[in-house]
């Protein structure tokens, strides 16, 4: 197949379309995903192609949406649901934590829930309150969930296809600010699967560990650092749960220094976990403590102030500068 130029939004739409073509038990539903095609148009045209039974609007109630997905999955379907924005996934929290995450374990594997919960994720789009939350840590902390966040157009396609094929529930986080990022991609090309991190850029001096919306920022930082003579390696986690300990530790050991870059507030978060587990495993390879560049421990700011909150190239480079180079 030839390469095509697609936005991440288009790649996600294509993934849904291809998944629905491949398997008629795949259903897509949620708020405004039918005629409107979703507020971000990720489900554009699906109702037209697959009919009302396959892609449909529900009443406005997130617990109902996720709970109904549980029931549909129990009875042979593969539901993909959309939470309109990640803060609007909170009403479904009980269903996610007490059922989606636990049903397989509860029933000794008898009831499997191949559910995908798609969520426009994180900030950087000037959204008003409740429209830019980063909720991955809530989900990553909940045993039983698989948590995935693509950062490239190709990964958006691949990971969503894999998530839909996955036998267990997947929280699928779509970085909002990357929806319109365009890339030349070959959708038939095989990409690493769920659970595998990839090194997006090689570099011997320090490792930047990022996922979702912060991957391009980390790449940009590495680019700028290179101009200043410092070679930064960039790891894109792709999957938070399962976590690719092997790849991440190999990367960090190769440089001995690392900065974790994430948009979410840092306290008790996925980024804390990365620091903790990499330090536990690579302590004697570390020349300096692993630094974090994350959102502050504050609610997501109003549009006019969001740039102060978001991990920036400068902030990443400052953190890299802080890696006690004099010690090495």
């Amino acid at each position: 197949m030839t390469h095509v130029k697609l936005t991440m939004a288009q790649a996600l739409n294509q993934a849904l379309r291809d998944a629905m073509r491949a398997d008629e038990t795949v259903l897509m539903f949620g708020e405004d995903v039918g005629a409107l095609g979703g507020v971000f148009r990720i489900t554009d045209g699906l109702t037209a192609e697959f009919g009302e039974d396959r892609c449909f609007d529900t009443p406005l109630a997130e617990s109902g949406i996720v709970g109904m997905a549980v029931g549909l999955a129990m009875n042979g379907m593969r539901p993909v649901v959309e939470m309109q924005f990640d803060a609007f996934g909170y009403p479904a929290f009980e269903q996610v934590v007490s059922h989606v995450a636990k049903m397989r374990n509860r029933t000794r594997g008898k009831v499997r829930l191949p559910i995908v919960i798609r969520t426009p994720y994180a900030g950087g789009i000037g959204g008003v309150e409740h429209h830019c939350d980063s909720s991955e840590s809530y989900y990553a902390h909940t045993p039983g969930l698989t948590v995935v966040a693509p950062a490239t157009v190709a990964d958006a396609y691949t990971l969503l296809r894999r998530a839909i094929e996955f036998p267990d529930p997947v929280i699928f986080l779509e970085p909002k600010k990357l929806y319109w990022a365009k890339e030349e991609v070959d959708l038939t090309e095989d990409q690493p699967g769920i659970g595998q991190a990839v090194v997006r850029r090689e570099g011997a001096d320090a490792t930047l560990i990022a996922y979702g919306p912060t991957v391009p920022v980390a790449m940009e930082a590495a680019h700028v650092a290179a101009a200043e003579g410092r070679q930064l390696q960039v790891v894109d986690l792709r999957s938070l749960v399962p976590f690719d300990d092997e790849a991440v530790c190999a990367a960090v050991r190769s440089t001995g220094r690392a900065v974790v870059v994430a948009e979410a507030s840092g306290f008790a978060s996925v980024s804390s976990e990365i620091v903790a587990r990499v330090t536990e495993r690579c302590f004697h390879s570390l020349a300096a403590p692993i630094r974090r560049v994350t959102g502050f421990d504050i609610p997501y700011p109003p549009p006019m102030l969001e740039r102060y909150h978001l991990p920036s190239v400068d902030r990443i480079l400052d953190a890299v500068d802080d890696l006690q180079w004099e010690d090495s």
Partner: protein
Amino acid sequence: MTTVEERLLPSAEPVQLIDQNGVRHEHPQYRLPADEVLVDGYAQLVKGRRINDQAGALVRQGRLAVYPSSHGQEACQVAATMVLREDDWLFPTYRDTVSIISRGVDPIETLTLLRGDWHSGYDPYEHKVAPQATPLATQLVHAVGVAHAARLKGEDTVVMALCGDGGTSEGDFHEALNFAAVFKAPVVFFIQNNEYAISVPLARQTVAPSLAHKGIGYGVPGERADGNDLAGLLAVLGQAVAKARAGEGPQLVEAHTYRVQAHTNADDATRYRNEAEVTPWLERDPIKRLDAYLSEQGLLDDNAKQAAESAAEQAADELRVGLMEDVSPDPADLFRYLHTTQTSQIKEQAAFLQDELAREEA
């Protein structure tokens, strides 16, 4: 008032076909079930009661961690499954052990949750019984999903979703009824209004004219029945199931019954209610009245009663024997069922525990 309202609002009084004295009453809308159905139902009630009481005893003997009894609510428990076909689904709560067993699920597997060796002990697909739900009302939305999937597959399965009076206050109750109505999902929402949510009486739960009155707000027909009258329940639930199966969408049924015992053995009901309140309900016992009616009609002789009781006794024996067996669940199970493919994290943790246990043994 229009016909819409007449169609959706419940009967002025809870439907009752056999009263507490065993006297039969005619009802313009509901017919008495056939004699053999009632006789069979009687045997199931007797067995249900015996299971409830045996389970209570097993708690006192330390063989079950806890048991929320449906003593006094057996008519609801039994009716809920009697009206179902084999390919229908049952969505029970923690109080619905008797319902689950009367659906055919192995009693010991049913009690796994309360014995504490695993979260749920039976295969939900074997008898189409969902795991018992503890977080209140959360199972009702699942029921809608299962019913909707059946509809999509072109099956005429019906889902019986059980809920308590307290559970109706949760947001998920609301979302489930609304989703079911909008999608015309074949679900019968069956509320066992036993007047209490642990210590909280119905009057503090709602000031609605009845719980069945909640249906109209979703466009769902609501009906109510005497929850201690098996005949009335079978008639009302049977009709609700038939309507749901016929594509008329979800149905809401409220049974007026009473939690005769404490919430569980761990609860102390004397803190929040008087014996005086309980006594009249003992008179309304579901078994007593059916016994009276059937005996009066000559449908139940001493032999039949004897048979019912020994069947019940046998069920109780099985329970006792089964639960007297010591079980020691495998610690490795903690890691076995979480994911289809174990993550490297879970593998490591399983290995850690295995190693720890090996060292302990050594």
